[in-house]
């Protein structure tokens, strides 16, 4: 019985395919590792984030191209003047992937679970402006409003990270509202996504989206293998390519690689200014001197870093905000100039003396410090080696120390037994409010001197004030003015020396249409529902 059925069914399928002019298409690319969770509220790693982006439906989506908040599940929304209450008007007649209808109750359910301290959701922390739990009111099946305990800066944009889960679906978080749904997960091997038959979006002609039927995500940690497979045509795209790989692919097929310009990723270094750090007092005195920090910064040849380490696919960095972040970038800032003479002048002004090519401080200590970075990151190790030679020109001896990541984190967050550190920085969020924990002097991620009781310096006090100001204001222009000033202060005082902003490098198969890689994650597939794959052969799986 079964035997007879199968050919028949295949024939029917083939007929259907021929009539509909449609052969199942599949998008293939790689995840770096197994997603740690499929629960959209618990996501805190990049691979789970990818799954959430492809499967989750959100109320408001930040358009990755124009960086504007656009309506998604919410047809519209309004906020009160303080940015404390937001009211969503939902699209009618939407269904989850399993057919359960979508309503305001689901939004309320998701928000309640998200904000529940027991959930430990990293996404929730961005909403947490006060200890008071938000009040959620469902006034009609399509209207829900959320009142937070205190104003939340940039509130609407935060909903880009909140995938709505169903309150009633028997399959709970596996019922989704995004373009795809997880069909199969083989740990260590692959995640298979199928199209969400109930996805609401249609294109201009009224065709149901997404265009591509399936997404196969191979779990492949090795980037070299990933490139080889891309060249063989087994993969359709690669996000965030390594500059070496980019150039190599560009040689083979120049049309398949895209340099989308500055990304949100940068490399930076900073000096340890923690007063209780187990370092000699004279070293802490150097590190606390802004003239010393600026001198070091001016001795660094950033364009050499971009040219040699990144093969030209990077640009000297101006500050904490990349030019890719169009609204918040302070365009009046230029990267610290490479100027050895000026660096020497600054050092002399601080009482440093150059003798026989070596720098000594006022008390006669030779200037030597170590730079910590994580082992195994090829580019970072190269940067460290180049800094070593750059600093030699102003008489500073730099010792590079590479440690594995946990050891490094312990030193920079707990023991403070380090002198300087080189690390990368990725701003996932465009809004500066996400960086409160970096800039507030009392915050734990204020790396150069975290958890201060009182701001140690006047400029840190000013940053504290400005950051609080921008967080409590809802007028974009006022917030922008405040944060521009923060960037200005950071540029002047150089607590972080920003080195380079990396370019966003992607590879896209020529078979893929409508792709338009951007600087923001997920660079190559931000518009996944609109991606189309040219069907080349009948044998296409």
């Amino acid at each position, binding site marked *: 019985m079964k035997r007879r059925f199968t050919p028949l069914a295949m024939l029917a399928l083939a007929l259907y395919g021929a009539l509909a002019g449609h052969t199942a298409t599949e998008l293939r690319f790689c995840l770096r590792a197994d997603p740690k969770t499929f629960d959209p509220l618990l996501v805190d790693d990049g691979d789970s984030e990818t799954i959430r982006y492809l499967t989750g439906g959100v109320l408001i989506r930040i358009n990755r191209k124009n960086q504007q908040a656009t309506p998604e599940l919410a047809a519209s929304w309004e906020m009160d003047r303080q940015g404390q209450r937001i009211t969503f008007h939902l699209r009618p007649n939407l269904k989850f992937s399993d057919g359960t209808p979508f309503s305001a109750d689901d939004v309320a359910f998701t928000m309640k679970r998200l904000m529940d301290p027991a959930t430990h959701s990293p996404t929730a922390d961005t909403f947490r402006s006060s200890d008071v739990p938000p009040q959620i009111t469902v006034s009609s099946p399509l209207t829900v409003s959320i009142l937070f305990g205190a104003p939340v800066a940039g509130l609407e944009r935060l909903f880009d990270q909140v995938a709505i889960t169903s309150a009633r679906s028997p399959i709970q978080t596996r019922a989704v509202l995004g373009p795809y749904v997880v069909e199969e997960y083989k740990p*260590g091997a692959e995640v298979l996504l199928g199209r969400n038959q109930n996805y609401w979006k249609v294109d201009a002609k009224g065709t149901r989206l997404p265009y591509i039927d399936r997404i196969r995500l191979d779990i492949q940690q090795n980037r070299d293998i990933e490139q080889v497979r891309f060249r063989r045509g087994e993969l359709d795209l690669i996000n965030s390519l390594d500059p070496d790989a980019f150039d190599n692919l560009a040689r083979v097929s120049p049309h398949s690689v895209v340099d989308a310009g500055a990304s949100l990723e940068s490399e930076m270094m900073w000096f340890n200014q923690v007063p209780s750090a187990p370092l000699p007092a004279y070293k802490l005195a150097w590190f606390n001197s802004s003239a010393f920090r600026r001198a070091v910064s001016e001795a660094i040849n950033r364009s050499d870093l971009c040219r040699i380490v990144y093969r030209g696919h990077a640009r000297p960095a101006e500050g904490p905000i990349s030019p890719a972040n169009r609204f918040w970038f302070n365009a009046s800032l230029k990267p610290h100039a490479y100027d050895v003479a000026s660096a020497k002048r600054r050092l002399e002004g601080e009482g440093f003396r150059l003798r026989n090519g070596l720098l000594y401080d006022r008390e006669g200590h030779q200037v030597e410090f170590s730079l910590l970075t994580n082992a195994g990151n090829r580019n970072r190790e190269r940067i460290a080696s180049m800094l070593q030679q750059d600093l030699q020109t102003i008489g500073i001896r730099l010792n590079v120390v590479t440690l594995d990541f946990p*050891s490094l984190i312990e030193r920079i967050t707990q023991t403070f037994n380090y002198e300087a550190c080189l690390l990368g920085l990725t701003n996932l969020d465009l809004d500066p409010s996400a960086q409160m924990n*970096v800039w507030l002097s009392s915050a734990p991620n204020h790396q150069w001197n975290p958890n201060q009781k009182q701001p140690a310096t006047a400029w840190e006090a000013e940053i504290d004030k400005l950051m609080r100001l921008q967080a409590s204001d809802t007028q974009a222009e006022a917030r922008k003015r405040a944060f521009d000033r923060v960037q200005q202060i950071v540029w002047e005082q150089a607590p972080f020396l920003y080195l380079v902003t990396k370019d966003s490098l992607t590879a896209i198969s020529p078979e893929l249409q409508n792709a338009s890689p951007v600087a923001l994650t997920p660079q190559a597939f931000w518009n996944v529902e609109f991606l189309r794959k040219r069907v080349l052969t009948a044998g296409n799986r």
Partner: protein
Amino acid sequence: MRNIVKLLAPRLGGLAVTLLAGSLLTAVLVRVSPGFDVDERELDPRLSETSRMAIRQERAANGNILALFGNRLSRTVLHGDLGNSPSLNRPISQLFRERLPVTAQIMAIGVAGGWALAFALALPTVLCRSRVFRGFAGTLQQVLMCLPAAALALVVFDFGGPVRALVALVICPRVFEYLRNLLVEAYAQPHILTARAKGLGGLQIWARHVLPSVAPQLLALAGVSVSIAFGAAIPVEALCDLPGIGQLAWKAATARDLPLLVAITFLVIIMTQVCNAASDWASFREKQA
């Protein structure tokens, strides 16, 4: 039978002691290694103070060696439940189930390929008088012995070679060296010389006389080569990103994943002890004979 029991009883006792001491030592080693108490997630500026505290508590809970051993060991022994890997957020037994076949395959290809290659080189070396072949086999063996396994892996990988067959290249020279000496000795035995002089077929001599005389040593060598294969699989997997136990060990080490590492140590100790036992048993049989 009694002999086997006599041989096995102290082995099992020893195995238990080694297992316990080994896993305890591993746990202590991981616990005191720098970076155990921190979590990468703490660098995420979005986290609030409460989330940060929760992360620290979770790590502290995993770092309690006594609790780990008190609870875990009994559950492992009684229910075969190896617990959860905190860094990968998955049950360890599941991780083992999906990764053991990969490592087993690499080892199997390695051992089988290595032995086949070694035999193909050693038999002609012993039997035929061609100096050219002898020189070739010897040089090949030397070259393979002189290459760092990890570099070999990279070179093969760079040129798109079969990385899964790499372990064979690590095992082959070691087996070859021993095999050649063994065969030289075997073929020099008077009765085999006589048989060859009388014109007995090569295959017959091999099957009737040589093989029985070298079998126990071959078995012992097989045991050793399995543990060499395991040792070589780890860097190969870690460098070439093959999803096996070796790569898992590497990941666990860099993430300071205590429960996972203890479980892997368990596995490694059992592996090596079983291999040792196999070669001991072989030499025991030899002594009896």
